[in-house]
């Protein structure tokens, strides 16, 4: 039965592998040169809130070389959606084309067929997600050293959220496909649903999944330590928050390491000693709570959708 499921998924497996190969072909060479540049320029010594002038130059160089590539990887958030939706297709096509009437009248029970036909794509999706996470985490290491991993682009492909989202896209395409029995329509709607969900998370939900921290300080006070590499959600007051990254920007927006402070503003700030800066932010310590909550939410939804699709197929299809 496993062979059958794999064989019928052959095209989708090959495309998945090709996507992975393509991304690897892009990331591996650039990742190696990024890591080289990072160590060659001695940037690890520059990881402080107030970098020295040579450090700032080095960081500036590094950014101008690699920032655009970094921004490009924001688009890779689409990959879990594409792969998840695609892996649901063989199952839906069986129902759409009527070949289930062949499959369920051999000697395998319907239950076993459903379990294998779902298990195989799920495992494929998990393998792909895992590979992508490893690849991205390795590739992005220099940036993470410089800016932390709380910015949207980094957060979305580190940790484990990719797994949750791949399952979510899979579950959505599956549930729609099983009810409507039209693979193309189901895939399209599911991908749109995935896309909208990601934007929703980026813009609204991620700030609220784990309660953000608040802080306030006068302009003559040092900013709280855990703002370093934090994700800044909102800010009132004129002070420039150093070492943090701007909050959830709309999907695909540029992210700049907020380490560089213009001299003029710094001088001006010294006179505004009465002004207080308030910030709402997610500190780096919230990385794993946020990852787990987001993954748990979407994997949970995925499991509900998959269970529904399995139940529907078992009971309602004739």
């Amino acid at each position, binding site marked *: *039965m496993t062979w059958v499921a794999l064989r019928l998924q052959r095209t989708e497996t090959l495309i998945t592998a090709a996507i992975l190969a393509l991304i690897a072909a892009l990331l591996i060479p650039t990742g190696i040169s990024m890591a080289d540049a990072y160590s060659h320029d001695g940037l690890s010594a520059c990881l402080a809130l107030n970098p020295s002038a040579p450090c700032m130059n080095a960081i500036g160089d590094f950014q101008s070389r690699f920032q655009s590539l970094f921004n490009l990887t924001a688009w890779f958030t689409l990959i879990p959606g594409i792969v998840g939706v695609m892996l649901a297709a063989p199952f839906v096509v069986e129902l759409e084309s*009527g070949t289930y*009437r*062949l499959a369920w009248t*051999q*000697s395998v029970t319907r239950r076993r067929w459903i379990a294998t036909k779902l298990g195989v794509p799920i495992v494929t999706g998990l393998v792909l997600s895992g590979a992508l996470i490893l690849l991205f985490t390795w590739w992005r290491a220099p940036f993470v050293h410089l800016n932390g991993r709380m910015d949207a682009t980094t957060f979305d492909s580190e940790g484990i959220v990719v797994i949750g989202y791949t399952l979510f896209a899979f579950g959505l395409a599956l549930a729609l496909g099983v009810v409507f029995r039209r693979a193309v329509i189901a895939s399209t709607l599911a991908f749109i649903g995935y896309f909208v969900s990601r934007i929703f998370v980026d813009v609204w939900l991620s700030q609220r999944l784990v309660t953000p921290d608040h802080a306030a300080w006068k302009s003559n006070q040092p900013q709280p330590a855990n703002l370093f590499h934090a994700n800044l959600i909102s800010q009132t007051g004129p002070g420039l928050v150093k070492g943090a990254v701007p909050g959830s920007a709309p999907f695909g927006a540029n992210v700049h390491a907020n380490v560089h402070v213009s001299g003029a503003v710094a001088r001006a700030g010294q006179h505004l000693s009465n002004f207080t800066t308030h910030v709402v932010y997610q500190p780096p310590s919230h990385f794993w709570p946020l990852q787990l909550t987001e993954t748990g939410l979407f994997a949970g939804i995925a499991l509900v959708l998959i269970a529904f699709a399995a139940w529907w197929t078992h009971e309602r299809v004739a």
Partner: protein
Amino acid sequence: MSTQAAFVADGLGKRYGAKWALRDCSLEIPRGSVAALVGPNGAGKTTLLHLAIGLSKPTTGDVQVLGRSPRDEAATVLPRVGFVAQDHPLYRALTVGETLRVGRKLNPSWTDDLAFQRLERLGIPLGQKVGTLSGGQQAQVALTLALAKQPELLLLDEPVASLDPLARREFLESVMEVVAERELTVVLSSHIVADLERVCDFLVILSQAQTQLVGPIEEVVSSHRLLTGPRTDPATVARIHRVIRESHTERQTTLLVQANGHVYDSCWELHEVDLEEIVLAYLGHRGERVAA
């Protein structure tokens, strides 16, 4: 476990929403029969076959194949029953050889030799993609899949409906050869009656979701008669025999009856009726002679 009948339905019914696709179906098909399931499209033939193979669940009543419930005892029933669904679904992207491999993986009682020999005799190449085969060849591949697990019962849903006459004939010859070789009960549905009389020995007529007539073909043909005579009210005949169809002209009355014993009334002339005419009468077809 050996039972007399290969296929038993008892008050079987299936409803989809508000509509009954099959109702009050009770029948028994003996082992070793080649049974024809005849009726127009939408009569319930596919529904009945899907209930028999466990693809659907009954709304009312009960169905047993080879003495077992197909839905509840699927693991025991499926290896012993071969099924070819309407339009013989196959995985079009797979080659013929890969399709057989699917059969091998999914059926513990699969016999490779049987499958390969069959296809070789039919001249169907193993390396060819199923989607590129002709309709007749695809039907034969689907049949091979159903036969290679050596079933005791074979269910065929409109197996020859979409085939050209030659392919249709070759398909039926194939099935008959297997029946000749070993004990196999066959139930095949069709909305074309012509093929069936020489191949089948048992008849089930379905129309409007209900069984109209069930029985061995020899008995059916010998118990139905066409009565012709001067124009009359059929009431006297109808008291003893079952009038299936009546038609009248100005001077003549024609009745198709299922006779209950002898027909004694001397004013009638008796004729034998062929199977096709009997089936058409049960399906509500009006006689060739139009009421004047």
